[in-house]
Structure formats: structure tokens, C-alpha cells
């Protein structure tokens, strides 16, 4: 039987900080995307200095992973001076590509940092193969598709273009075409295309018709619980974990996870899941099945409901956040394993969130390893028995009959909410 030749897509994870960059790579990401101190859309993420960028690149390259720098603002006149220096400095750190959307910055990058690969950001809303060909002719290496593109459309694009295709597979979604939304500019003087997005789409609006100014005829309806349901434009999050074969077979080169603002818990969990799924499919595509544990795992860090966005159909009301919030188990990131002593079956944990005796915790690590248990004892650094570990970064030990490894993380189910957490 002829063996199919499949190209393994990279799993591309967000990294808001150097710590998250290292975690994402340790947990299976083939590449990470980060922001510099300018020109990125996540002004509130922990963006990288050039020194941090250099350290991140060294860490990634030593593990055969790549680093991309997002410089995807839509620049105004006063933003452009200094852009050439920025791209030169980025190139000098050794990053593998920059993610840009504004042609003025693309051109600046080409001139200032020749040879530095450029990926077109999703902010450019690329939805057809001719657009991809335009950018390929411009010398770009890759296009990040608009989130509005369906799986059949990607298959068709692949037949018409050789440029690398990157597609979002997980995380929060803009409700509109990215880049074509300035709600935030008009409602709060915060430029959505320069990192100021206030997520106005998720606000609750009154909906009405108005024959003349001030004469409003309310059209706001009620939800199934009989309560007033304000109009909103808020999408549930994307999750393509159950459709990895479709993405690979369609010819997607890079599977992108959203979330440079997200936590270490989120980054590690989601990178772990998708790298496990891609590995499994590439190892044996004919017998591949979605592991329900992957889906369960993603729900542990889910902030909203999840859907497949535009991949299989135009989203309906089921793909938006209407009604009461859907109940689901809540997990918190409670710590990182520092050491494990098999002789005494003792694990040493650096606390990140309040937890204690009686709590259900779960260890998880790279390669999708898991072990769940109830905390039966807990000791401080001096070996004194304690009931809880309330202090941020506190070093504690507990008995764990299963071997875990340094670098594994610990999450807890329904931990107490009055935790003392240092940001």
C-alpha cells in the first residue's frame, strides 16, 4: 500500500513572557510568537526586550523551535520613525520571522532587515488564494489566514498557492474581520489596530429602531430563562482539537494558538494537547482518533464555550456568548514541581496559588503525562506540617505515590478563592 506523504505542521503557541516561551516549548510547541516593545497589538502583554528576545531565541533554537515576533499594528504617521531600527534590532536577535500586517511596515522591514522572513498577520483579513499569491509575489514567507476562512477554502487555496499557510486553531476570536474593527477607537479612543482594543464587541448593547432621534423602540429580547438578554457581539472561543486531520490534510503549515495575554497554565496545557494530537496523527493517520482526554484537558483552561468558528459553517447563535454562562469545572494553577524523591515518594512544589490538604490536584507534564490525587499531607520548608500553602512562591512538600518530574505543573480543582497570589 502506498504510504501517504504528510507534512507535519508546526504547533505555534503564544508567549507573553520569557517564562511562557520556555514553557510553551517544553510542552511541545514547535514555534512561539512574542511581542517586542513596540509595533505589537498586545500592549498589555508582557512584551520582550531585545535581550529577552535573544535569550528566548537561544532557548528555542537549542530545542529546534522557532520564534516569531509580532509587529502587526496598523501604523499611523507618527509610528513610523524608528521602525527600521526596530526591525534591524529584531533581526539581530536571531528570530525566525516577524508577523506584520501593515504594508508600510512590511516595506520598512524588507529594506531595513533584508532576509528576515515576514509573515502576514491575520489582521490583514486574507480570505482568498489571489490575496495569498499577491503576498507571495511580494516575497512574504507565510500568510496567517483570517479566522473567517473555512476548511474547504483552505483546501482550494492550497491548490492555487505555495505560500505557507498559518491558521488559528484555538483561543479567543475577534467577532469581526480582524483589522476591520474600530469599535474601540470610536467608543473609547483606544486604537484597536495599535494595541488598544477594549473588546467592545463583548459589551452588552441595547438594540432598537428609531424613527427619529430619541424615539427608541426597544427590540431587546429575553433568554430561555425569561431574563432580559442584551444584544452582544461576543464569540465563544475556537477549539479545533477534534479536527486536526482536516487541518493537516488541507495543507496548513502552522497551527496557531491564540493568547499572548494568557497564563502559563493555559499555554502549557494547550500546547501540550495540540502537540500530542499532531504527533498522534503523524505517527499513524489511518488509525488516528481524537483522544477524549485532550478535549477534557482543554476544558480545564477554557474561559468560554468552544466552537469551530467558520471552519465548517457560518457561525450561528450557538457560537456566540448569549444567555447564562455555561457551568464547567474550575481549575487553578497551583504550582510547579521542583523535585521528586522516589525513595520517600515526596514531591517538592513551588506554590503559585493557594492549595492545601484535602484539595484534589493534578500533575501534568510535557508529553501529556498526568497524575491526579488528593492532597493528604503538606509540609513547609522546615518540614513542619501545614494545612495550606497560602504564600506565593512558597516551597512545600507532600507525599505523592506516583513519580513526577521537575518542570511538571500542578493544577487544583475548586481551590479556595481567597488565595494570596503575587502577580
Amino acid at each position, binding site marked *: 500500500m502506498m504510504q501517504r506523504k504528510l507534512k507535519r505542521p508546526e504547533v505555534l503557541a503564544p508567549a507573553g513572557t520569557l517564562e511562557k516561551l520556555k514553557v510553551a516549548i517544553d510542552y511541545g510547541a514547535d514555534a512561539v510568537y512574542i511581542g517586542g516593545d513596540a509595533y505589537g497589538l498586545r500592549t498589555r502583554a508582557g512584551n520582550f526586550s531585545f535581550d529577552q528576545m535573544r535569550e528566548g531565541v537561544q532557548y528555542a533554537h537549542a530545542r529546534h523551535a522557532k520564534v516569531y515576533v509580532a509587529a502587526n499594528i*496598523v*501604523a499611523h*504617521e*507618527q*509610528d*513610523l520613525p524608528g521602525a527600521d531600527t526596530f526591525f534591524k534590532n529584531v533581526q539581530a536577535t536571531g528570530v525566525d520571522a516577524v508577523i506584520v500586517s*501593515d*504594508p*508600510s511596515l512590511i*516595506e520598512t522591514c524588507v529594506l531595513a532587515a533584508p532576509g528576515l522572513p515576514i509573515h502576514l498577520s491575520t489582521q490583514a*483579513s*486574507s*480570505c*482568498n488564494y*489571489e*490575496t495569498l499569491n*499577491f*503576498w507571495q509575489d511580494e516575497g512574504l514567507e507565510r500568510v496567517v489566514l483570517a479566522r*473567517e*476562512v473555512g476548511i474547504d*477554502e483552505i483546501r482550494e*487555496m492550497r491548490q492555487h498557492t505555495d505560500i505557507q499557510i498559518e491558521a488559528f486553531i484555538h483561543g479567543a476570536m475577534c*467577532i*469581526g*474581520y480582524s483589522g*476591520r*474593527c*474600530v*469599535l474601540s*477607537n*470610536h467608543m473609547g479612543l*483606544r486604537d484597536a*489596530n495599535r494595541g*488598544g482594543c477594549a473588546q*467592545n*464587541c463583548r*459589551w*452588552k*448593547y*441595547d*438594540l*432598537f*429602531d*428609531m*424613527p*427619529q*432621534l430619541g*424615539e427608541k423602540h426597544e*427590540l*431587546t*429580547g*429575553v*433568554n430561555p430563562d425569561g431574563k432580559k*438578554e442584551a*444584544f452582544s457581539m461576543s464569540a465563544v472561543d475556537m477549539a479545533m482539537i477534534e479536527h486536526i486531520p482536516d487541518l493537516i490534510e488541507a495543507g496548513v503549515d502552522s497551527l496557531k494558538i491564540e493568547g499572548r495575554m494568557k497564563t502559563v497554565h493555559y499555554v502549557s496545557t494547550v500546547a501540550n494537547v495540540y502537540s500530542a494530537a499532531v504527533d498522534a496523527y503523524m505517527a499513524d493517520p489511518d488509525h488516528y482518533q481524537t483522544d477524549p482526554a485532550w478535549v477534557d484537558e482543554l476544558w480545564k483552561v477554557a474561559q468560554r464555550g468552544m466552537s469551530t468558528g*467558520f471552519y465548517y459553517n*457560518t457561525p450561528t447563535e450557538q*457560537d*456566540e456568548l*448569549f444567555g447564562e454562562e455555561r457551568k464547567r469545572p474550575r481549575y487553578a494553577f497551583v504550582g510547579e514541581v521542583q523535585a521528586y524523591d522516589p525513595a520517600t515518594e515526596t514531591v517538592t512544589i513551588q506554590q503559585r496559588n493557594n492549595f492545601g490538604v484535602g484539595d484534589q490536584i493534578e500533575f501534568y507534564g510535557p508529553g501529556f503525562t498526568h497524575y491526579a490525587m488528593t492532597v493528604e499531607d503538606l509540609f513547609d520548608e522546615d518540614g513542619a506540617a501545614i494545612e495550606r500553602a497560602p504564600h506565593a512562591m512558597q516551597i512545600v512538600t507532600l507525599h505523592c505515590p506516583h513519580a513526577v518530574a521537575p518542570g511538571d505543573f500542578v493544577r487544583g480543582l475548586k481551590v479556595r478563592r481567597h488565595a494570596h497570589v503575587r502577580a
Partner: protein
Amino acid sequence: MAEIIATADSIEQAAQLTAAGADYIYAGEDEFGLRLPHSFARAELTDLVQAVHAAGKKVLVAVNAIFHNDRIGEVGAYLQFLHAIAVDMVSIGDPGAIHVLQKESIPLPYLYDGADLVTSSRQIDFWARHGAVAAQVAPEVPYGELVPLMQHVTIPVSYLVYGASAIHQSGRPLLDNYFSFVKDHQERTDRARGLFISAPHKPETHYSIYEDRNGTHVFATNDVNLFGELDRVHALGIHYWKLDGLFVPGQQFSQIVAAFAHARDALAAGQWTSALVADGQHVIADNTPVNRATDTGFFDIDPDEVK
């Protein structure tokens, strides 16, 4: 002298607009163009072009949709058709359509219109080097940024001086989805339905919202009216004054266009007066629909105020 671009909702209105002083009639078909007052089928568009040319004026056709595969395949034939009927210029916002235009060597001048994305002279120059003969600058670019922008651009620019300003486009049927959820089926969610949303704790706001085949569109709470600022617009050297009559029907819009054309002529002749401004503002107020209001949008906002 500046040229006035005015949208048309019919051949009859186009005749009024050209008589009122519009230099370009802006029209198109909603399969290819965004947020149009009327979707002109090809036969109707052919008649429109003939009528406008007979009046000695020009036609700018909107081909500025965000295209998916299904429609990009139709763009080449549509551009060939527009060239065949002697359309004077097209507006394009999707680089895929530019790729088609150039791949098929269709000799149609294009104005780059990437909506809110067109914000700097260097970006405009990029499109100029890719064949654009003009560019539509985003309404979110204030006067303070227009000054340096206009010093550096190498092709003429267009700027919205009157009309609704689109601030959001979604590929989702956001209104239908909402009404489905609350089980309140509405026969129409299109522009003619006249729906608005208001922001939380700001009941005075009224953002127009509607759906069409290009998705859901939301507009700024007030329409742009730069009549009182036209001396500064003129001094900037903005070549195309865009007036959008998406929400202003028929004769009302023609009256507004006439006021702007009169102002344009007065400025060119050095006859700009406060009395003329007052008269023009009266015309605009009298002809702006009763469920709409106007302001100067982002024009007078200090660029440093925008975070």
C-alpha cells in the same frame, strides 16, 4: 480643485448628483462592493455609466469587498466588464483583487480603499507603487495626522467629508443570530430595517447596524460632517471629497452634495465666508434624516488622545 465623489442609489439620483456638482458617482454591486446605497446589476450599471458620462462626469465602482475564494474567481470577469463599459476608476481593498487586475492586465485605474486600515503616507505609497492612482484615507486619521500625511503622499487621496463611517464588519450574521437566540424572528435585518445599538451607560449613542451578503456592519454613532472644516480640508490639498449617502435618500443627499460643491467652488475662488458655512450647515441639517445626527468624527481629535 477638489473633486467630489458621491454615492448614488439610482440613475435618477445620479443625475441629480452630477447636476449638483459631483464629479464622480460612486456605485457598485454588493457582490463586489461594500456598504452601497443600492446594488447595481450589470445592465443597470451600464446605463448609469452612460448617463454619467453623458453629463460629463465620471464613475467610480466599488470592488472593495473582502473576497473569499468563491467570489475572487468572479472578480476578473467583473473588472473586464467594468473596463468594457468604460468605468473611470474602481476602488479596491483586497490585495487579491489587485493581483487579478494586474495578472489580467486590465487597464482600470484603481483607488486603494482598505477602509480603516489606510492610515499613513508610507502605506499609501506602497499601494501607489503597486498601481494605485489614489487612496481612501481612513476616517480615523485626524487632522493632526493628515498634515504630515499630506506632505508625504505621492498620489491623490480621498477623505470622507460627509456620511456614515463604518466601524465594524463581521462575517457573521450577528443580528440574525441574536434574534434566533431570543426567539424573536425578524423579517428584515437589512439597512432598510433601520436598527441601532447603544453602548452600555450611554443611551444617547445610536450606532447603525445591519446585515447584508458581506456580513454585519456597524457605523459610528454620528455621521461625519466636515462642512465647517472644509477650509482646512481644502488647505490640506485633499483631492477627493467623499460624500456617502448610504443613509440619506434621494433628493436630500443631492441637496447636501450641492452644498459641498458650492463650498468647494467658493474655496477655490477664495470666497469662503462664515455666512456660506452657516448656510451650508442649514442645508445639511435640513436634509439629514430625522433619525441621524452628525459631528466631525475623528477630524479634530488630538492624535495623542488616542491610546
